[in-house]
């Protein structure tokens, strides 16, 4: 096997992260190469550096013998590097044929559109991967799996030598994934190099020849996929055996804080009921689009409900705005830390006090000393690693940024804290520190709704779990059921089966 791409000493930093640290990687023709690692470990950044989207701070890329320091996306494409991003970047309102042929025609410098040619290109490429599709349908109307095929064909039409695929299977069902894997193996036989990014371990082992593991921007190593098993792979990805301490409810108070009854918003979630006591950490899990985030938004006053009732401390209320939610003692750690959670250009202390401005004001004036005290208190309590509370929040690492958002809401002393995927893109160290804090909050009598799709973290942190699918609650687990062996397997299967059912016509 001959190497067709070599990247040497690639480094890239962004504000708040050293995304890549002296990475070397070699990609061979006729090989399926998997980049593995947790969220935010640098896989996607590396792909962007190799394909010319980012210019690396240091290092060079060598493609079929030619060296580049400042590779542009166009040069990369001309050299046969094709990237299929997670969102596929297709033209929704154009037909399948147009989508497949457009880049090729563009690169050949055609000034006019030749419909016959478009169709013949599209047909040729679809035959190559053995898929039949209606060429005249618009891409917006076809299934996710078929869109993936269109994206692959578009890349092949431009004489791809290396095909990068960023998490190609997240939106696909089991059968569709199997089909995609088959196509990948087929393409490999034809001499194409495929680099794919995934954190689904079973897929990685089915197709990959070589696995390169990343952790926090460092390359841990290249492994032959035969030399690894799931356990050793996840050990290399996380840097340790993951054993988080399990949460057990100790709170004696059994009177419910928050009760929701038959809560419904059509098209998002239906007929959701739950009762939450102090010290409960309720895991809310399900696929993206299962209605979990929408439900959280409704409880925080950002998404009006249509029917059903909400009771807080036994009293029926409606939560019409975030202001009302705050007054009732409900806090939300939003899903999108960067846009919804933080004022990225502001100081740590201004972020921590942002939900408390009226409280720290006296006659309209901010009491700066009090603001500093509060900020310092939560920075210490949550172990935010920072030179000072005056530091601009955007310069911190992801984990420390998340701690600041948690601190901001903890400072309001909430009774119910809704956390929407609190550990996405966060390093292991911060992760376990955040878990520790959450347990401490719950021990102190706070009720927590913990939204996540990582089963491991749900098992470690929650004493009850609700599984959502298509907006409905499909199963509830209480403390005893969760305690039994194999509960995690049952939950994983529940979610998995649901995703397969969803798309079968």
């Amino acid at each position, binding site marked *: 096997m001959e190497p067709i791409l070599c990247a040497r000493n690639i480094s890239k930093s962004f504000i708040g992260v*050293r995304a890549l640290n002296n990475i070397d990687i070699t990609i061979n023709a006729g090989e399926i190469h998997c980049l593995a690692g947790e969220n935010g470990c640098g896989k996607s950044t590396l792909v962007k550096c190799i394909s010319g989207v980012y210019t690396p701070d240091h290092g060079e890329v060598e493609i079929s013998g030619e060296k580049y320091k400042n590779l542009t996306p166009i040069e990369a494409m001309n050299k046969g590097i094709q990237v299929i991003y997670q969102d596929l970047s297709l033209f929704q309102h154009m037909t399948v044929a147009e989508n497949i042929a457009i880049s090729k025609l563009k690169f050949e410098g055609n000034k006019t559109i030749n419909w016959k040619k478009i169709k013949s290109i599209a047909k040729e490429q679809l035959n190559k991967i053995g898929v039949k599709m209606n060429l005249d349908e618009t891409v917006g109307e076809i299934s996710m799996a078929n869109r993936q095929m269109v994206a692959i064909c578009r890349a092949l039409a431009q004489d791809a030598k290396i095909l990068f695929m960023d998490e190609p299977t997240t939106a696909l069902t089991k059968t569709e994934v199997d089909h995609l894997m088959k196509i990948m193996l087929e393409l490999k036989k034809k001499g194409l190099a495929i680099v794919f990014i995934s954190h689904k371990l079973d897929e990685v082992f089915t197709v990959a020849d070589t696995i390169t593991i990343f952790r926090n921007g460092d390359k841990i190593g290249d492994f032959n996929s035969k030399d690894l098993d799931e356990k050793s792979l996840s050990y290399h990805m996380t840097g340790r055996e993951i054993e988080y301490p399990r949460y057990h409810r100790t709170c004696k108070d059994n009177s419910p804080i928050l009760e929701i009854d038959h809560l419904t918003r059509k098209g998002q979630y239906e007929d959701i009921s739950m009762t939450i006591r102090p010290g409960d950490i309720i895991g809310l899990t399900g696929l993206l689009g299962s209605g979990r985030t929408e439900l959280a938004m409704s409880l925080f006053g950002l998404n009006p409900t249509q029917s059903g009732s909400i009771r807080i401390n036994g009293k029926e209320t409606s939560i019409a705005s*975030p202001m009302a939610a705050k007054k009732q003692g409900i806090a939300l750690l939003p899903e999108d830390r960067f846009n919804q959670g933080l004022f990225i250009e502001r100081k740590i202390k201004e972020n921590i006090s942002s939900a408390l401005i009226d409280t720290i004001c006296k006659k309209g004036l901010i009491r700066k000393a009090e603001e500093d005290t509060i900020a310092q208190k939560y920075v210490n309590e949550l172990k935010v690693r920072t*030179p000072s509370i005056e530091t601009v929040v955007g310069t911190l690492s992801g984990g420390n940024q998340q701690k600041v958002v948690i601190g901001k809401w903890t400072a309001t002393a909430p009774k119910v804290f809704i956390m929407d995927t609190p550990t996405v893109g966060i390093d292991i160290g911060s992760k376990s520190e955040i878990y520790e804090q959450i347990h401490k909050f719950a021990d102190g009598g706070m009720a927590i709704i913990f939204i996540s799709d990582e089963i491991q973290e749900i098992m470690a942190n929650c004493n009850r779990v609700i599984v959502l699918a298509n907006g409905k609650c499909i199963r509830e687990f209480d403390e005893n059921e969760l305690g039994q062996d194999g509960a995690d397997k049952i939950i994983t299967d529940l979610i998995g089966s649901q995703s397969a059912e969803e798309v079968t016509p």
Partner: protein
Amino acid sequence: MNKIKKMVGKDLDLSILVGLALLVLVTVAGAFGGSMYSGRNIQSMAFQIPEFGFLALAMMLSNMVGGIDLSIIANANTVAIFTAYVLNGTWAFGTEGIARVILALIVAAVTSLIFGAFNGLIIAKTSAPSLIATLGTMTLIQGIGMALTGGSSIGDIDPLFAEFGKSVVLGLPLIFWLFLLVSLILGLILSLTGFGRKLYLYGGNPVAARFSAVNNEKMSILVFMATGFLAGMAGLIILSRVNSAKVGYGDSYLLQTMIVCVIGGISPNGGKGKVQGVVIAIIMMQVMSSAFTIMSLSPYTKKLIWGIMLVLVLGLNHVIAAYSQKRTLKQSMKNLQSAQ
């Protein structure tokens, strides 16, 4: 030296602006010497600054929440027309002398606040972009003035009020002192109060503000009310200086206020900037404008120079942004290291 370095590092934009302003002042002094900084010329500049200054402060506030208020000039003129009607006796309701002036001030304050609140309500309730919303209200407010006056100027106002625009205290015009006072108060409000803090947060990231239980609608309405009020004050100053009010006075100020805000370090995307910056930019612009007059440049040349200035400032801002991005990156790497 270290101290200066620290200060410059703390607020790069403002430091550069101060440097630039000093450069302009010194250059102009070198070129024109006595005629530029004669008592008379300084006084005449100080008379010209406030009407434009208040409009620029109004524009600044709307820029700071990531919006724009195109209706400020229309607002100022129509408020001036209302006030002029009170002051010339048409709408005086039998008041005389000082009572009439007080009534006029109340009318001015109320109308300007109503115009501002109207802008704020439209923007908060319909989530229309402020550019479109205020374009509409600009035409509407202008229309009100037009319907009342038919386009002619309303004069013959109470001499007591006209005196206000001409009186001099401690060598400088009363209205200039008023401008400085209002700027100071506005600066303090922005940096010390809860309202000011919410304004920066809301302006910087309205989504995160909403997720932090900041009442965005209320903020939008309050900010545009304040904008309207400042524009109304500009209207009063115009009225007292010109002794009459009419639709369309000072229309060319609109673009200049935006230039001043950009030079003064206000980010049109919101959440950034300080009153000091805008005040310095206003004074600098006036000094240059004065210098152009002494050089007897034609209005066309002046326009050309303003245009070049704006483009230069945009270029400079780009360079500064790239530089501070690099600095933040470095700082961030340092933070990461110290955290480990």
